[in-house]
């Protein structure tokens, strides 16, 4: 780790005011701190936002669930309101990392980092979420722009995520055996008007799988996916899974997600 100035702030305003081109926000630190320790990244200023109270909390309002950016995965997993409104969202949070990660890592941190193998971005896409930031509201589909890239501007801070409540949904992750991040993660959400299917871990950034959505819009059943065969040419390939294997996993995870939807 290289030396830096450390700031603890109490409000969003204070945080954004301090931000510069060489600064970073520190939420749970589950990715940031290891990468700083390995000197993969370094900053002149680290702005700790954990004490910003307004960023915490879970609210179910009408057809949406609004979760504050600082809310920890463990809190989402344990929330009865979330579980009742969107069962799969609590289930997703429950499956992130290990108890230490779930008790430090936050929703805002996860989506701002936008790791291509993270779970939460798929929830944002499948549940048609709106990302609230310190300066605006962005549709999730316009938020995740590339590998570890989002449409956040320098100094802009995610404050909350507003998820739409589907009729039923399920998230199935096939974890990377080493890291237990998603080698492939498929989030299926059935709304009155449409079925949304978000896939994480398979490309450089989370995406909607139109082939699966099309098949499930016609017939929301496991067997509807029997004949779906995905192209592998645009999928990630690494030592743990070839693109071809990922293509097959996406379909099998999607089938399990359909079967497990509630």
């Amino acid at each position, binding site marked *: 780790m290289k030396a830096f100035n450390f700031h603890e702030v109490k409000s969003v305003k204070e945080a954004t005011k301090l931000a510069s081109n060489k600064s970073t926000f520190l939420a749970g630190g589950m990715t940031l701190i290891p990468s700083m320790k*390995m*000197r993969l990244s370094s900053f002149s200023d680290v702005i700790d936002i954990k004490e910003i109270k307004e960023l915490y909390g879970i609210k179910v309002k009408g057809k949406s669930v609004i979760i504050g950016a600082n809310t920890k995965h463990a809190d989402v997993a344990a929330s009865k309101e979330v579980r009742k409104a969107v069962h799969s969202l609590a289930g997703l949070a429950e499956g992130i990392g290990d108890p230490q990660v779930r008790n430090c890592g936050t929703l805002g941190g996860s989506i701002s980092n936008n790791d291509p193998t993270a779970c939460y971005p798929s929830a944002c896409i499948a549940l048609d979420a709106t990302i609230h930031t310190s300066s605006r509201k962005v549709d999730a589909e316009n938020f995740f722009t590339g590998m570890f890239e989002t449409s956040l501007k320098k100094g802009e801070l995610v404050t909350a995520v507003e998820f739409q409540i589907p009729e039923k949904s399920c998230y199935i992750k096939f974890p990377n055996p*080493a890291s237990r991040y998603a080698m492939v993660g498929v989030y299926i959400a059935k709304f009155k008007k449409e079925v949304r299917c978000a896939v994480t871990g398979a490309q450089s950034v989370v995406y909607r799988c139109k082939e699966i959505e099309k098949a499930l819009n016609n017939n929301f059943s496991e067997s509807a996916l029997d004949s779906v065969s995905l192209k592998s040419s645009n999928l990630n390939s690494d030592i743990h899974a070839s693109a071809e*294997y990922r293509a*097959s*996993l996406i379909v099998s995870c999607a089938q399990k997600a359909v079967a497990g939807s509630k």
Partner: protein
Amino acid sequence: MAASMIGSKVERKEDKKFLTGKGRYTADITLANQTFAYFIRSPHARAKIKNIDTSKAKKASGVIDVLTAKELNEDKIGGLIAGWKIVSKDGTDMKIPPHPALASDSVNYVGDHVALVVAETLQQARDAAELVKVDYKVLKAVVNTGDAMNSESIHDGIDKNLSFDWELGDKAKTDEAFSSADKIVKMTLTNNRLVPNAMEPRASIGDFNPSSEELTLYTTSQNPHLSRLVMSAFNAIHPEHKFRIVAPDVGGGFGSKIYPYAEDVVVAWAAKRLQRPVKWVCERTDSFLSDCHGRDHITNCELAIKNDGTVTGLKVDTIANLGGYASLFATVTPTYLYGPLVLGLYNIASAYCNVKAVYTNTAPVDAYRGAGRPEATYMIERLMDKAAKEMGMDRAEFRKKNFIRQFPHQQCLVHNIDSGDYEAHFNKALELSDYSNFEKRKAESAAKGKLRGIGFSTYIEACGIAPSAAVMSLGAGVGLWESAEIRFNATGNISVMTGTHSHGQSHDTTFAQIVADKLGVPMENIDLVHGDTDKGPFGMGTYGSRSLAVGGTAIAKACDKIVEKGKKVAAHMLEANPDEIEFKDGEFIVPNSNKKKTIGEIAFACYLPGTYGEIKSPLPEGVEPGLKETAFYDPVNFSFPAGSHVCEVEVDPTTGETKVDTYTCVDDFGNLINPMIVEGQIHGGLAQGIGQALYENAYYDETGQLVTASYMDYTMPRADNFPEFRIDYTCTPATSNPLGVKGCGEAGAIASPPAVMNAVIDAIGTEVSMPATSEKVWKALKDKSDTKKKAA
């Protein structure tokens, strides 16, 4: 005190400190005026070093010095050595390249040690390291085990990258068995490379005292005495009598901390050169890159079989990867720890084993839990499985038919096995695993859309390493006896010094149990002292499941000497004949009388001989004061633990995911001192063995970069990867040591890879290599079904 401690599940004495975070590891030690060291390592797998410019770094804030091979040579510090000489089949000695402690003109793996930055803080050392400019001429790396002999030589004068071409066995006799065989079964196997992953990364602190001229090295070692010997005699760092090595609490080794590393040599030397304590703690990434790795064999093997299922011959042809240099025990691991074991526990009349050891631009490979024996067991057990299937025989029956049945048994290669009953543990394992109802469980799995398979593995190890005369005749640089010293204190408690080292093996408890039983002293009054060359006698450390069989026996022998002396003193005090004194439960008794002395009273009398009223001195004439005895034990033979393991897996054919559903092991470790500790050793071994079979793999890309250099990519198994293990034992005591013990530390890692792989292959009906990751299993199933479709 009458109840025997040997054989009891005594709770671990060491748990209190470890479970309350009070262990004291090398990194926990802080010395006054200490400096911090950071190693600059090669980012290239193979390169020439054209120049190292340290000028900027030397001027950086807080930097004390930047040391390179130049300074090392100024001080005439020797390079690292290979400690076991192997002779090739043509009579020539193995070829060993120079292995300088800091690279002088070339680097040979990513992570090779190039320079040391020493600064006031670690931060400053790391910052300065970024200012050191090393000018490399990058060369094409030789990475794969199988390609090494056909590639450019990476070391001058070592043709085909071949260190040695070694053979064992009677080739002519084996050829004859093959020419008269009814059936020959062949296969090619890869034994995947593993990273040892001790929980505590390596660390060293050098401390030179200019007043006494003593050099102390605190380090993470399984073997501090041998490290001191090597670093004194070969690296010429400091004379042995002025050199102290302390290996305090050490968080696991699995072999990777047996030998002194370049970092130990450099840190000890730097402390002496700079006259300040130098502290170095390895980071996890460096640990992946620079700890010696394990395994990495490619093997062709074949069996000669008669129609009735009798195996008459075995041929083994192995290429073993040594990595960039030959580490201390690297050359014995794929030869004498491997070759003699290829027969497994089968009675095979002829065998021939050829091992070619090659250099590649990868981290050095050395002993890792099991060292040679897992590779041998994997080979023979996979081959036996395949042979049974090709012979159309039940895999269990085929094994049983070929078991050794009479003991002692002289194998056709090297070992003379003193005791065992292989059918006993095999039958018990079949029963415990409910083999007879396997088909029913398979049908249940099929109903859920899953594929179920069962796999067997039997194994034999040569442990209790090792009879000195035997190993030295085979090229060992040292004998492998062990020492012990029992120091009674005047107040009746005991310090036990051992030359072995505990880094997870629970010696504090196990050895105290032996002493408690032998001397009738409560466990809490017995303290084990190890890991400090200034405190105990020279010993050979801990590896090869040797500590109990060899070190424990030395302790038992020292206890016997204490009793012998105690009897003389007791007889004198009780006015009896030493021959008639009996010693039992801590008391010296004159039979048929009420005359007795406790061992505590005897100890007190031995130390304070002038204070006894009615007799002038409690010590008979010619008996020296004090109660302290030393014993050295050199075993007469290896010990031969053996066992049978049964694994059942369930495979999801849609994803290839393999779950170990049940795992059963029945082992014969001879007598058990503490069954709870033994069980812990089995669990750990199984975790590593199942890890090798399904998850772990050290993977280098074609340029020699270690792709799996963190836990993000190197799959360490976790608790949820394992079922509850079913564990049981049989017992045929070892005859080679008086405790009748055989060793248990490596068995799990030796037996489990073939048990798991045989189960996976049984489930999917086609070959797959280790680790059988979900993708590989999925691909194997897909290829099988594609081939079927094509044929149809």
